């Protein structure tokens, strides 16, 4: 009986770990603490190479700009 309980517990722990792992979409591990929902934004915006890949190029400004 005790053996059966141990196997069930292990199975439960394994399935919970699997669920937790697959449920987490953000693998980024910042060196500084980031609060909850911001983490996926930071995942991209701290990555200069990735931003260069996905950024939409902006044409350079033309002429003299501004209030002089």
């Amino acid at each position, binding site marked *: 009986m005790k053996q059966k309980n141990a196997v069930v517990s292990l199975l439960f722990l394994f399935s919970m770990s699997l669920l937790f792992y697959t449920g987490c*979409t953000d693998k980024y591990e*910042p*060196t*500084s603490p*980031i*609060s*909850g*929902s*911001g*983490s*996926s*934004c*930071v995942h*991209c*915006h*701290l990555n*200069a190479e990735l*931003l260069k890949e*996905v*950024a939409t190029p*902006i044409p*350079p*400004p033309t*002429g*003299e*700009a*501004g*209030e*002089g």
Partner: protein
Amino acid sequence: MVYVTEDFLETPHGKSSCVSCHNGNPAASDKQGAHEGLTALPGDSADVYCGRCHAEIVSTFETSLHFNQKGYFVRIANRTGFDIQGNPELMEHYNEECGKCHASCGQCHVSRPVSVQGGFVNGHKFDKPDRDDNCVACHGSRVGAEYLGQNEGFQPDLHRFKPGGGNCSFCHSGSEMHGSGTIYTYRYLKLEMPRCEDCHQDDEAANIYHQRHWSHESLPKLACQVCHSQPYKNCNGCHTGGAGITGSSYMKFKIAKNKFNLEAANRDYDYVTVRHIPIAPDTYASWGISDLANFSSEPTWKYATPHNIQKWTALTTVAEGQGCGENCHNSAEYYLLTSDLLNYEVEANQEIVMDDKL
């Protein structure tokens, strides 16, 4: 570019979650989904975002000319005869051509202004405005170039080399930029705007020139720039159209009568330096306003405070044996005269020209 540096995350703003200011969908796994509902420029809604922590500054920010652009709207209304803010079609033109120079909290403290395509100044870190990336980004073609000595043949402003003078905040304070709660219709009416006399009051009687031209009981009072400015940039059609103003900007120095109604701001000088502005009767033709009904309601040479101050200028330096006013008095070169004007400008400037002083 929206690259955030990691050290931003250690700053007070960086410790807030991104979505608290930018919204969007952080659970999405692609760029398009993540940016759904994004608030790219929270500073444009300062009362919603910045005001949570900076309520006092935001409470008066709507009176900042950098934000409300009241000066532009009043000048346009004076010349057209109506307020364009009630006309969506005209506002579309305005926002496309003039409104880009509007500044929000973020465009001074986080990124470069939108008018120069934005981009973080320092990895999203919030800071006091950077001279080159913020102030000069908008005020570069005239003020910045003058102050930094970038106009060929002319010296930088001597204040640049004073301790702290490398930054615009040496003279221009945050309270001037943020708005005081008073609604101004013209930038030179702002009481928070610096005047030379704020620092140089002790110089009032420092020499015979100051005694005669600064505070003499019966002689005209001159703005400091009249003696201490070098030639400065005057504008034609750099960023607007109109017959007669299609040429590029040019360096010039002109003195005119001060009829700009600035007494309330203690700018009660009799003579001031003036700068040509890019306006013609058909400037707004592309907006559907073929002719400005009240074109002559305001001068086309406006009160100017060139940012290229020198102690000794062409006006304060005379050859040995010459009188002290040799280079200024009776000078057709330095005075704004009717002969300097285009035909359609004569009426608009008739009160400020110096023809009767020669």
